[in-house]
């Protein structure tokens, strides 16, 4: 599944603020002769504060830690015949506060290795509920045990120009909501991006 991503970051004296948005859709997710349409939307905004610089393999290592708020929306719509009374689709949304950590290893002026790790701590989640089956509330406050949104990425960034760089990397993301009928969404992605500094 292709996931489209756009991000913006602003460096202040003592912190970095960033805002990211990504969208993905596919109608070719298949298993056991069943096909489904998946839509997922992510919106993240947060702050990163630099820690003391360190050395790794005699190269400069910049570490950052910060907090963020994330919003996720997920829609699963299986391709099956249903009538007007029944619904085959399920959806979930989660608004979380969490922690993230970034690391940049400066191999050279033009070549960096970058990594990021984030996890939600507390979330306000919504889940589609079958009112015929149970009386559960469709909205709940969840800790990371019942509602987890986390991701890890590792990539390399090459500076074509001072302000223009390209990035390639790997990202793993995990969404797990178990406060209702369990929803586990895990994906690994090959990430390719262009970063312009202005």
């Amino acid at each position, binding site marked *: 599944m292709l996931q489209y991503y756009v991000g913006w970051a602003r460096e202040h004296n003592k912190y970095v603020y960033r805002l990211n948005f990504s969208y993905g859709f596919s109608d070719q997710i298949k298993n056991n*002769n069943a096909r489904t349409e998946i839509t997922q939307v992510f919106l993240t905004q947060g702050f990163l504060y630099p820690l003391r610089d360190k050395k790794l393999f005699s190269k400069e290592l910049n570490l950052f830690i910060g907090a963020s708020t994330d919003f996720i929306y997920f829609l699963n719509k299986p*391709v*099956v*015949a*249903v*009538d007007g009374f*029944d619904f085959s689709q399920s959806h979930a949304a989660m608004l979380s506060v969490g922690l993230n950590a970034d690391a940049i290893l400066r191999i050279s002026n033009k070549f960096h290795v970058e990594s990021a790790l984030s996890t939600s701590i507390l979330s306000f989640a919504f889940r589609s509920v079958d009112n015929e089956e149970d009386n559960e509330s469709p909205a709940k406050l969840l800790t990371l045990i019942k509602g987890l949104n986390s991701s890890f990425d590792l990539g390399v960034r090459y500076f074509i120009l001072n302000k223009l760089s390209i990035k390639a990397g790997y990202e793993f993301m995990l969404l797990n909501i178990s406060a209702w009928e369990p929803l586990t969404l895990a994906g690994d992605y090959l990430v390719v991006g262009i970063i312009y500094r202005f």
Partner: protein
Amino acid sequence: MGTTNIGRRLFGRRYHLQILTIFMKKLGTIFLITIFGCLSGCRDIYVNPAGYDENLADFEATWNRINDVYPFLKFKNIDWDALYLVYQKRTQEAQGDEFIQVLNDILAELRDGHIYFEMKGGAQIYPWYPARYFKDKHTYDPFVVRKYFDRELTVTESGSAEYGILPQNIGYIFLSDFHDDYLVHEFPTIVNSLINTGGIIIDIRQRRGGTSQNVEAVVSHFIQEPLAWPKFFLLDQSIVIDPIQPKEPFYSNPVIVLVNGSTFSAGEICTEVLKQLPAVTAVGDTTGGGGVASSGNPPEARGEYILPSGKLIYIGTGYFEKYDGQPFEWVGILPDIRIVNTSEEIENGIDKQLEYAIQFITLENCNR
């Protein structure tokens, strides 16, 4: 209380201010308690009081509508006159939204899975549904069905049906919707694509109703001569419906109709009509028992009825019988061969009803 001579004499100026502060805080609390008390007493300003005229008008209209048109009061042994006083009293005592529960309960007395009510701008609320529906709600699963195929099923453009061919060269059609006229347009294409199979399984499990024209659209491809409908009654009058006419393409090989307790209304009529055909066998469990019907012609036979408040109720004005002359309301349609699925088997990926249908058609073809 306020500042007192005792306070001034015993405690001096500093303590006067403390006493005044305490008094002002208490005054605030007293003020809040007073306001809360007033608002509680004024509940009738914002909650409709007992005996609200609109509620009583809705009750009268509902009771009269059911009394005038509902065809099964006698069949179901419902003393509708006796219920008038019971629900009139409850309506008089209902305040605010409590009347919605009263309306729900009076409609539930009919124990009819077709009956619903709707608030203005709201969804349909069904006060009662047959126990067989809940028994079989989880004894069919479209993903378990797909495990018996070696490729994806085709879902029609309307989403009202899906079909495919099993590895044993047996056609499979799941009918999810008898509403509008989807099957009139889509069913011929489905039959065409399955015309060279050794048999067809028509799956009507989990079905909640629709129109007779869609039933006709299905049945017409399995007959070579006109077929009479079972008897139909509307506002206590017997209504003659033109027989079902055969249509091309005609399918002549064995047919299995899969049904269960969730099969309802138009799905049951379809089953009852198909069962009359020598090449068709109904397999599964007894259907839900939804024999009530309505029609837009004449206008007074419409099931939808608007109450004085703008709420809507649906009350059937007619019914289909089975070919043996008995209504299938409550009773349902019995399958020719009873095979029961359990929800545990479905959770384990086993659909015994589908497996039996496949085996049956395979044996029929071997014996020919």
